[in-house]
């Protein structure tokens, strides 16, 4: 008897669910489409080595203002924005707030009448456990008139962001949404995080590591932090806080002197990374480095200048080995220097365990 009641009520439940799941599926697709139509792909500078030449943006005015992430991609005169319908439009940077990783672009075409976010009515806040969607131009997968990629996830925390020091890109230091989905991929910066109902939560940030654990952080900057500057930039009233990104952003973990390397004075825009002197008894001396050696590679990355070398050195991990390639005369010499552990640095966690078939997706 009980069984029968249970069975029949279960059946009823099934029927209800079936209906509701269809209704839900339709609404989630409508939500995704609505958000995708307000998301754009940004193409600019980069494309060499690991610097991607693309990012994401979201439309914040019908006249054609796009909020996006402040990055090297915008460092060009040839900035192109691909709208959701595939139209390509030239754009220029109208203003930026590097401390918030925020830039606002102006599309250089009149009468666009784009679907745009209302930064008052359509913005909301969310706590841990909120189910969210992430929209972005990650990996530049969506080409031509294809819509941006969408990921699903959950807000894990809304907390102050402590990204890795020594990485000169981390400038945002406020509260951020931390999510469990891999939202922060190459090109994803400037994308949006929304609730499943399509309410705007935040702008997807850069690819950064957590200062505490050295793991990748998937985060978004809350729109509540951004909407004021966005409005002011559009109105032409915003004045960014002055600071030299090269000075303040680089918190170098290691300096050349710590290895006993003295570089030639950095006087040019791109001073070649020649060694001026090697300190006696230092790691550099033990590795056999000599004055007038030209440093060409650091851990496999090309060194174009003294500045690049200093920046690269600032980012290397504690412990392990520093691999340099230097040119002496017409010979290329590889050298290895031990990297000391820095007590003030968090422990470097074990590298993620290699999959059983590393280097192969079989």
């Amino acid at each position, binding site marked *: 008897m009980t069984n029968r009641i249970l069975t029949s009520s279960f059946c009823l439940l099934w029927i209800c*669910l079936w209906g509701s799941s269809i209704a839900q599926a339709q609404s989630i697709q409508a939500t995704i489409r609505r958000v995708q139509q307000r998301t754009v792909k940004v193409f600019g500078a980069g494309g060499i080595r690991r610097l991607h030449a693309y990012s994401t943006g979201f439309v914040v005015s019908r006249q054609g203002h796009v909020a996006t992430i402040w990055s090297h991609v915008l460092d060009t005169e040839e900035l192109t924005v691909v709208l959701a319908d595939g139209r390509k439009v030239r754009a220029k940077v109208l203003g930026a707030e590097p401390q918030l990783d925020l830039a606002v672009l102006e599309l250089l075409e009149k009468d666009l009448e784009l679907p745009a976010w209302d930064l008052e009515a359509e913005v909301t806040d969310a706590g841990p456990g909120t189910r969210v969607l992430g929209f972005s131009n990650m990996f*530049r997968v969506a080409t031509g008139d294809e*819509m*941006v990629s*969408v990921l699903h996830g959950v807000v894990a925390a809304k907390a102050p962001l402590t990204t890795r020091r020594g990485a000169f890109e981390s400038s945002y230091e406020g509260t951020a949404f931390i999510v469990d989905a891999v939202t922060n*991929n190459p090109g994803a910066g400037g994308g949006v995080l929304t609730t499943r109902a399509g309410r705007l939560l935040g702008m997807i940030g850069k690819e950064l590591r957590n200062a505490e654990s050295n793991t990748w952080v998937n985060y978004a900057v809350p729109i509540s932090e951004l909407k004021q500057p966005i409005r002011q930039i559009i109105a032409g009233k915003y004045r960014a806080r002055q600071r030299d990104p090269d000075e303040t952003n680089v918190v170098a973990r290691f300096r050349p002197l710590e290895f006993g390397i003295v570089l030639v004075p950095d006087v040019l825009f791109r001073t070649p990374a020649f060694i001026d002197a090697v300190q006696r008894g230092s790691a550099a001396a033990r590795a056999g480095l000599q004055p007038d050696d030209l440093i060409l590679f650091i851990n496999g990355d090309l060194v174009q200048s003294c500045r690049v070398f200093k920046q690269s050195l600032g980012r290397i991990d504690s412990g392990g080995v520093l691999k340099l390639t230097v040119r002496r005369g017409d010979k290329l010499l590889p050298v290895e220097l031990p990297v000391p552990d820095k007590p003030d640095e968090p422990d470097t966690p074990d590298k*993620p365990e290699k*999959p*059983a078939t590393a280097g192969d997706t*079989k």
Partner: protein
Amino acid sequence: MSRTGRMLGRRNWQQGGRGDLRLFERDGLLCSRTWLVVVIALALLPRISFAVDPAVLAAEAKRVGVASRLATSVVAIFSRGGRGGGSGVLISPDGYALTNFHVTRGAGTFMKCGLSDGQLYDAVIVGIDPTGDVALIKLLGRDDFPHATLGDSDALKVGDWTFAMGNPFLLATDFQPTVTYGIVSGLHRYQYPAGTILEYTDCIQIDTSINPGNSGGPLFSAGGKLMGINGRGSFEKRGRVNSGAGYAISINQIKLFMDHLRSGRVVDHATLGATVTTREDGAVVVDGILDESEAYRRGLREGDEIISFAGRSIRSVNQFKNILGIYPKGWKLRLVFRREQVRTETLLRLRALHRASELSGSPKPKPKPGGKPKPKPGGKKKPPARKRPPVAKPPEKYKHLYVKKQGFANYYFNQQEQKRVLSGMSRLGDFSGARGAWVLAGKTEAGDAYQLTVADVGVGLSWKQKAYYQELDKASEPLDEPKGSGGLLYAMHMWRSFLAKREKGFGEFFYLGSEPLDGVGARVDVMISELGNVRCRWYFDRKGGRLLGFDSQRVEETDECEVRFSGDIDSGGRHWPKTIRVSSAGVLLASFGVETVTLKAGAAR
């Protein structure tokens, strides 16, 4: 300890567990305690069910049910050497299973496959598609394998829930697949070849977690239909683990290739013989075309705007590549193009994308699956090139199921398909004795009388007060006679050879797969014959095995003579077509009505 050994250990442990439970039930004292627990649990139950929305519980129950049902069709693939492996999915009760080409590539011709029942099965390679990264294998030893149902991947929407199943990191020593759940992130994505011929076109992008070892495993819809084969991911600085962008080859693409794969061949994708680019105004235009291509012969030129292809309108270069990429070489597709307001519509047979040697010859191009940004080892040294695993001996019981032949993954399966397709031919009667001249006579549909004579020394046609002749000694070239027919007379010679001698009349003879007849008709089985330079495609009805017609190509890169049969007349115990319809380059030559058939002894003129 061997894998099986570990499994046995696991089973013993489980049985031990159940034994303990029985003891527990018999013990009176413990029993009363059990009751207490049950009562408390029941008292708590209402509160629990109030806490969780019943809709959530039911959705969970549904998900769990679907996942456990689907798990039975998922295959863990291991090379016989025991090194490396991947995943796959069964698609028929007799053991056919899909996986990635890059999974089978290193695994040899025979593999070991584990199912969720804990059993290991032998499997043999059937067909491979190196460009599309698909392989068809056959599990052996049962005719009642649990299998997945193919879905319609074009019905997927961005945001739909999906299951990915497989054996990531080769974790499952008991062959229970790992299940991940996520959404469709994008559709109709195009993934550039990553330094190899491997290319993912029109694929499904998912945030469902895909990791090394998932390759070749199934992507299911939330309803449990097979939507794709997982095979690639975008990896970059985070290492070779899921980074939120996985790619599955759509099942709709695989359906187009399925019979090609069953043919045991190394199958190829296609090109149009033309390249396209996007013009400033967004139009997709031809920016290069091969003079010898069929597209060129049908009038396509540089600068022409592509309007639609295979029934889909074209708005971007990627879209064009996406469409081209899902079709096998040799299929006929409809192309619509425009030049200065003149719209042209034509059917084109797709050309091979690769030379045969590129597909199967050298082992050099190692398909390294990776996302658009090529997976970089991040400053690490390149791992030493993996040695080829020692080739394990095929299992004695099954070694007859593999036949080696150039251009084939496993010729055994082609032989089986040949037998199947040709089995319907015997109903036409025995033509093997009909060695003399064949004389067919009647009228064309326009009312003109004709007489066609096909003999060993030559083929003659008298029609509309004209006589045409094709000599057939060894030195004679196949002619385009009558002019513009694509070589009807030589085609008739091919027809007679096929009916009288079957495969013995040709240098090469094999089963190709299936395609829609003339690009628009029902799917038909296709056999290929080759004799000298002359290549024929023979079309068979898929149900009754009836010969529907054939296309004969005298010389490569020329228009074929298209011969179509219909109707049936009985003459001397043999069945002949009532009408022979002949056309070339889309232009009808004539429809020959057959009224009398005379077989003459000996060679005749």
